[in-house]
C-alpha cells in the first residue's frame, strides 16, 4: 500500500511552523503573529485540498493512509488515516486555528509568557489535534491524546486569567487521570489481542475485528470510557471545564471546548463502540442517564451563572450531553446527528467565546451584571452575538438545529421518555441564551459600557464573519457534512451490531442518502 502524505503534512506544517515562530525575535511580536497566522492558513489550505481529494463514496474506510513502523517490539506503527467523521473534525480544527489567531490578536499581550510562545503553543496544539483525530494506531492515538495536554496546560497557566494556576492544574490532573486509566485499558487490549491472535497489535482495524470476551470488554471499556467522559466532559466528570474555559484566553477556550473536548465524544463513537460492542450495549443505560442529567444540569447551571465565560462553558456541558446521548442511543440518526453536532457545536461555541471575549476585554469584566445595553453602543457586536447564541440554542435555520433535531429523532425512535426529557434541554437553552442576551445587550447603558465598549473593528469582523457564514450555511444545507459522516456512522452501527428500529417517522438523515 502506498503512503499518502496529506495527513503527515498537516502534522508537520504546524510543528515546523511553531519552531519557526520561536526563532522570531522576542520583541517582534507582530511578525510572530503574522507568521503563525500564515502557517495556520497554509495548514487550512492543505486541509481544503485534502478534503477535495476525499472519496465520499468510501467515507467508511480510512483514506490518506500513512504508516511506518515506530516501535516494532510492540508492533506499534505511526499510522494515520481518516474516515468521514475524522475528516470533518480535522477540518473543524484547522479552520478554527486561523480564526482563533486572528480574533485573539492581542490576547497574549502583556501576559506572563511571550507572544511568540503563545502562538507557537497554539500551532503545536493544532498538530496534536490533527494527530489525535488522524491516528489509526491506538498507541499513537494515546500519545496524541496525552501530549495534547501539555500545550493546553501552558496556554491556560501562562496566558490565562486570575485563577489560571488552579484551572490549569485541575485540567491537567483530571485529564491525566482519565488518560492513565485509558493507558491501562489500552495495554490490556494489546495483551488480549496477543492472546487471541498470537501477536499483539495496536492497529484499530485489526482490534475492531477481534471478538473479545464480554467480561474483559467491560473492564477495557471502563478505562476508555472514563477517559472520554472526563474529556468530553459528561456529568459528573465536568467540573474542570468551567474553570479551564473561564480562566483561559477566548482563543484557548475555543480550541479547548470546540475541538479538544470533541476527542471525548469522537473517542466514544470510534473506540468505545467499535472496539467493545458488547460492553457498549451493557453500558448504554448508564451513559444515557448521565447524558440526560448532563443536558438538564448543564443548562440549569448555565442559567445560574453570573460569569459570561462560565455560562458558555456550562452550555457546552449541556451540548455534550446531547452528543453523548446521540452516540449511545445506537441509531443511525442519533449518531449522524452527534457527528454533525460535534462540528456545529465547534463553530457556534467558537463564535460565542470569541465575541464574548471581545465584549469582556472591552469592559474588563466577565460579570454579566457589569453589562447592559451593548446593542446601542455596539450593534454589530450585539448582532453577531445574538446569531451565535441563537445557533447555540438550536434555532431552525442555524446549524445546531439540524444536529440537535437528528439526535432527538434518533432518541425518540428508541427511548421515547428519554427524548421527552432531553427536549426540555432545548427549552432551557432558549432561557440561558436569551437571558444572557437580555441582561448584557439590552436595557439602559451603564456608564462604563458606554465609555469602554466600542463596536467590532475590521480584524474582529474578519475573524467572526466566516464563523457566521458556516453556521448559517450548515443550518440550511448540512447535507455535504452528513454525506461524509454517514458511511462512517454506518460502519460503527454495523460494528456495534445495532440496526435502526422500524421507523415510526420518515428517516431524515437518509433523505438523499443513496
Amino acid at each position: 500500500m502506498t503512503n499518502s502524505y496529506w495527513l503527515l503534512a498537516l502534522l508537520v506544517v504546524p510543528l515546523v511552523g511553531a519552531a519557526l515562530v520561536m526563532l522570531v525575535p522576542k520583541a517582534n511580536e507582530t511578525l510572530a503573529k503574522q507568521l503563525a497566522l500564515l502557517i495556520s492558513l497554509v495548514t487550512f489550505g492543505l486541509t481544503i485540498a485534502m478534503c477535495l481529494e476525499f472519496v465520499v463514496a468510501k467515507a467508511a474506510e480510512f483514506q490518506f493512509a500513512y504508516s511506518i513502523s515506530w516501535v516494532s517490539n510492540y508492533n506499534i506503527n505511526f499510522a494515520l488515516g481518516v474516515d468521514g467523521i475524522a475528516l470533518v473534525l480535522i477540518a473543524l480544527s484547522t479552520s478554527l486555528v486561523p480564526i482563533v489567531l486572528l480574533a485573539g490578536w492581542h490576547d497574549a499581550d502583556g501576559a506572563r509568557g511571550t507572544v511568540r510562545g503563545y502562538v507557537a503553543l497554539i500551532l503545536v496544539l493544532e498538530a496534536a489535534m490533527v494527530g489525535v483525530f488522524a491516528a489509526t494506531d491506538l498507541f499513537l492515538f494515546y500519545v496524541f491524546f496525552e501530549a495534547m495536554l501539555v500545550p493546553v496546560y501552558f496556554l491556560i497557566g501562562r496566558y490565562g486569567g486570575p485563577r489560571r494556576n488552579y484551572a490549569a492544574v485541575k485540567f491537567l490532573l483530571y485529564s491525566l487521570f482519565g488518560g492513565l486509566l485509558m493507558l491501562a485499558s489500552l495495554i490490556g487490549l494489546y495483551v488480549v489481542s496477543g492472546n487471541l491472535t498470537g501477536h499483539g497489535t495496536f492497529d484499530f482495524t485489526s482490534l475492531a475485528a477481534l471478538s473479545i470476551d464480554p467480561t474483559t470488554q467491560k473492564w477495557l471499556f471502563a478505562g476508555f470510557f472514563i477517559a472520554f467522559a472526563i474529556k468530553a466532559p459528561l456529568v459528573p466528570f465536568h467540573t474542570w471545564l468551567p474553570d479551564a474555559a473561564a480562566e483561559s484566553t477566548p482563543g484557548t477556550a475555543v480550541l479547548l471546548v470546540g475541538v479538544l473536548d470533541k476527542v471525548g465524544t469522537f473517542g466514544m463513537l470510534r473506540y468505545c463502540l467499535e472496539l467493545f460492542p458488547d460492553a457498549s450495549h451493557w453500558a448504554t443505560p448508564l451513559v444515557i442517564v448521565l447524558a440526560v442529567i448532563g443536558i438538564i444540569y448543564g443548562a440549569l447551571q448555565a442559567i445560574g451563572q453570573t460569569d459570561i465565560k462560565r455560562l458558555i462553558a456550562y452550555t457546552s456541558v449541556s451540548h455534550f450531553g446531547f452528543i453523548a446521548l446521540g452516540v449511545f442511543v445506537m441509531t443511525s440518526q442519533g449518531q449522524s446527528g452527534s457527528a454533525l453536532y460535534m462540528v456545529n457545536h465547534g463553530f457556534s461555541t467558537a463564535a460565542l467565546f470569541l465575541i464574548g471575549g471581545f465584549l469582556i476585554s472591552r469592559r474588563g469584566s466577565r460579570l454579566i451584571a457589569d453589562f447592559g445595553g451593548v446593542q446601542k453602543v455596539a450593534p454589530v457586536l450585539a448582532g453577531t452575538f445574538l446569531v451565535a447564541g441563537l445557533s447555540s440554542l438550536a434555532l431552525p435555520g442555524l446549524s445546531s438545529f439540524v444536529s440537535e433535531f437528528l439526535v432527538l429523532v434518533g432518541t425518540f425512535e428508541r427511548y421515547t421518555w428519554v427524548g421527552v426529557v432531553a427536549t426540555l434541554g432545548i427549552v432551557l437553552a432558549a432561557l440561558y441564551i436569551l437571558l444572557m442576551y437580555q441582561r448584557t445587550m439590552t436595557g439602559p447603558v451603564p456608564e462604563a459600557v458606554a465609555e469602554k465598549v466600542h463596536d467590532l473593528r475590521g480584524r474582529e469582523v474578519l475573524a467572526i464573519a466566516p464563523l457566521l457564514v458556516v453556521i448559517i450555511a450548515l443550518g440550511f444545507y448540512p447535507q455535504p457534512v452528513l454525506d461524509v459522516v454517514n458511511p462512517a456512522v454506518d460502519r460503527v452501527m454495523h460494528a456495534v451490531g445495532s440496526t435502526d428500529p422500524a421507523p415510526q417517522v420518515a428517516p431524515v438523515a437518509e433523505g438523499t442518502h443513496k
Partner: protein
Amino acid sequence: MNALADAVPKFDIPTIEYAALAPILIVLGAAVVSVLVEALLPQRYRRSTQLVIVFAALVGAFVAVVAARGTQQIVAMGSVAIDGPTLFMQGSILVLAAIAALVMAERKVDPAGDSFAPRASALPGSEDEQVFTRLGWLQTEVWPLFLFCVGGMLLFPASTDLLTMFVALEVLSLPLYVMVGLARRRRLLSQEASLKYFVLGAFSSAFFLYGTALLYGYAGTVSLSGIADALTNSAGDTGLVLAGVGLLAVGLLFKIGAAPFHQWTPDVYQGAPTSITGFMAACTKVAAFGALFRVLYVALGGIRWDWRPMMYVIAALTMIVGTLFALTQTDIKRMLAYSSIAQAGFMLVGVVALSSQGLQGTLVYLVAYGIATVGAFAIVTLVRDSTGEATHLSQWAGLGKRSPVVAAAFALFLLAFAGIPLTSGFTGKFAVFTAGIQGGATPIVVIGVVASAVAAFFYVRVIVLMFFNEPQAEGGPSVVIPSAFTTLAITVAVALTVVIGVLPQLVFTLVSQAGTFVR
C-alpha cells in the same frame, strides 16, 4: 613419583576471563591508581589527573562493555555472569555515572570552589573547618571513592553467587556512605545523612548476610544456580528458604529504596551533596535492581509462587507510600527522593511480571529514570542563593521567568517522571505496565496508573511554581551559569530523555538483544 603427586592436592589455576571482566577490572584498577594519585601527586595536579583517570576509566569500561556484547557466559570460576542483562546494566551504569561525574566535576557553581567539604574529617562548625574553608582548600578525594563505588556497582548485578554479591554490595556501599557526608554546605545535615545511611546500610547488609547463611543452610551452596537446583530437586520443606529469601530481599530492597525499607532515602538524598545524590539515585538503583532480578529470577524462580505475593505487596506499598509522602514535601530534594521511591515501585511491576518482558521493561525504565534523575539533580545544583543551593520549593517560584531554558529542562525531566508520552518516562512506564498485564499482575498495574496520576500532581506543582508564579522579591535565588561540565551533563540528559521518548525502538532493540540471564 606417583605417591608424591597424590600427596600434593591437585590445584587448578583459576581461569579468569579478562576480556569479559574488563569493564569491572578497568574501573577498579583506575580506582587504585586514583588512590595513588591522591597520595603521591602534589595537590595542584590532582584534579586534572583525577578527571583524566575517571573519564578514561568510564569510557574505557564502556568500550569494553560494547566489545563484550553478545557474551553469554559464567566467568571467574562461576562467580560472575557476563550476559546480556549484565552488559546492558553495566553500560547504563557507566553512562549514568559519566553524566553524574560531569556534575561532580563542576567548580564554577559554588563560589567557594566545589560542592565538597574542604576537609571531611573536620567537625562541622569547628574552628578547623573554618580554617580550611578560609584557606580555600579543595579536595579530590571524592574521585577514588567514586570509582570504587562504580566498580562495585558493575559487579553487583553480575554476581552469580551470594558471597560475591555481598562483596560487591559492600564495595559499592562503603564509598557511598563517605561520599554522602562530603557536602560543603550544611555539613551537619550531610554528616547526619551519612551516619544514618551507614547504620541502616550496615544493618541491611547484615540481613543480606543472614539470608545468605540460611540459603546456604538449605542448599549447601551460595551459588545462585546451585540454589535453583536445590529447589528443583528437593521440593519439600521450604521454611528455611523462605526465611532466607525474606532476609535477602530486605538487604536488596533497602538499596532499591522500596517501602517499607525506604526511610533512609529522603534524609540521605537531602543531606548528600546534590551531585552525589543524583549519582546514587540513578546508579545504585540500576545495580540493585540488577541484583534483585538475578536473585529472584535465577536462584528463586522455582519458588516464585511463594515470593510473588510478597513482591506484590511491596510494589503496591512502594508506589503508594512514595506518591503520598511526596505530595507533602516542601523541599525539592526530599520531593525527588520520595519520587524516586514511587518510581522504584513502578519498576517493581516489572519484577512481579515474572517474564523476560518484565526484565526488559524494568531495564528500560531504569535507564529512563536514571537519566532524568541525574539531569534533575544537576539542575538542583544550579539554583542557589547566598547560602548555597535553594532547595525549598517556594524559592523556585518564577524560575521560568528568570531562566527559561533551565526551567524548561527541569520541566521536561518532571514530565518524564510523570510519564507523559514522548518523554523517556512514558517509554519506561509503558514497557513495565505492558509486562505487568502480560504477566497477570493487572491489579498492580491499576494501582500503578492511579499512583502515576497522583504523582503527576506533585511534579506538575513544581512546573506551576516555576512557570505560573511570580518570582520572589529581591534576594531570591537565581540560576548560576555553570561551566561546560554541568552544561554538558544537562544537555546530554535532555537529549536522551527526548530521544528515548520519541524513538523508543532504539532502546527496545538494545534490551531485546540483551536477552535473558545466563545460569
